[in-house]
């Protein structure tokens, strides 16, 4: 096959002011400007957002799913990081 590969971009949308941009999918485009145009056409046909980001997919570094246990287990092993770990006497009221 001789067709040249069109670069891949990840698309993020801010649904409305005050919310964070959120990943919605990807598009192929030759450059950033065209990626924005394509993202607008493909992902915002029904007022899905007020701001778009496009990021070259190749720029994303992902954690390895095989290392999920080592990476994220410590977080669940520390219940004392959560407020529900502590008992506050009823008389004290809401805290």
């Amino acid at each position, binding site marked *: 096959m001789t067709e040249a590969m069109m670069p*891949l971009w990840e698309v993020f949308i801010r649904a409305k002011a005050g919310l964070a941009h959120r990943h919605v999918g990807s598009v192929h485009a030759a450059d950033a400007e065209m990626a924005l145009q394509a993202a607008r*056409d*493909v992902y915002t*046909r*029904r007022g899905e957002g007020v701001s778009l980001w496009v990021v070259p997919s190749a720029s994303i570094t*992902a954690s390895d799913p095989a290392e999920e246990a080592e990476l994220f287990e410590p977080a669940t092993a520390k219940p004392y990081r959560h407020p529900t770990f502590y008992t506050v006497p009823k008389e004290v009221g809401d805290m």
Partner: protein
Amino acid sequence: MDDVARPPDDAARLERFEARVAREDKVEPNDWMPDAYRRTLIRQISQHAHSEVVGMLPEGNWLTRAPTLKRKAILLAKVQDEAGHGLYLYAATETLGVSREELVEQLLTGAAKYSSIFNYPTLTWADVGAIGWLVDGAAIMNQIPLCRCSYGPYARAMIRICKEESFHQRQGFEIMLTLSRGTQEQKAMAQDALDRWWWPSLMMFGPHDSDSPHTDNSTRWKIKRVSNDELRQRFIDATVPQSKYLGLTIPDPKLKFDKKTGHWRIGEIDWAEFRRVIAGDGPCNRERLADRQTAHDDGAWVRDAALAYAEKRRKQAA
């Protein structure tokens, strides 16, 4: 099943994978997955993407001839949605390690299939109504369980598509309703469209469960949640009362209501026609692929120019 028996470490991984799927965990692109799972998904999702893309053609036929400006704007929005759906699904397929360029080539060379329904012609405006009501209706019936598919990117694409697809079916029904409440000629046109689209729509659910080659693995791996026959029955039960509301007749003399089960029972589907159209001998197979090929060829200079321009800008910036 052949590649399910593998060396020991793969056997252990397969076991973990199957356990994970069984407890309704989603599978994501970088996770280990059996080759057969990956292949099944690539085949199914890309076939689905191709169907959305080729599906623009029968409707595109009426874009310039829609009866009013309102209908034209609606149809244009619907066709744009189909393009969008094709793109969401291509993107989901690419997460499995196949390139867009390969996928497009598979469609154009005929190596990959698309839904055989799009090989039927749209002869009158009523066909646009029948497609929305029946073809999109059948598609939604198929797609709702896919929103819970075990493969995350496919499930997410399907959720988006189902949300958008609902307007397609309703606008189609509205066209049929308008025609069926219109003049004698308009009503006859609606009936003629129903006559031609009813059986092909039922074929969209695929062969009977007893003859379906892909069901076993797909069901265990939670790619397919509901069987072909079950989905077809749901569609029939939903659609027959709608046809009565329209005052149109389902073209099936054997259609009858089974009081015991509460289901509508249909006559025999012409599977010889189904196989003929899938094998490439439907009314429009050659025309559809030729149109896709032309669109692809006509766009080649645009893709080349865009890449050349991006390259030039990169060099200038360096």
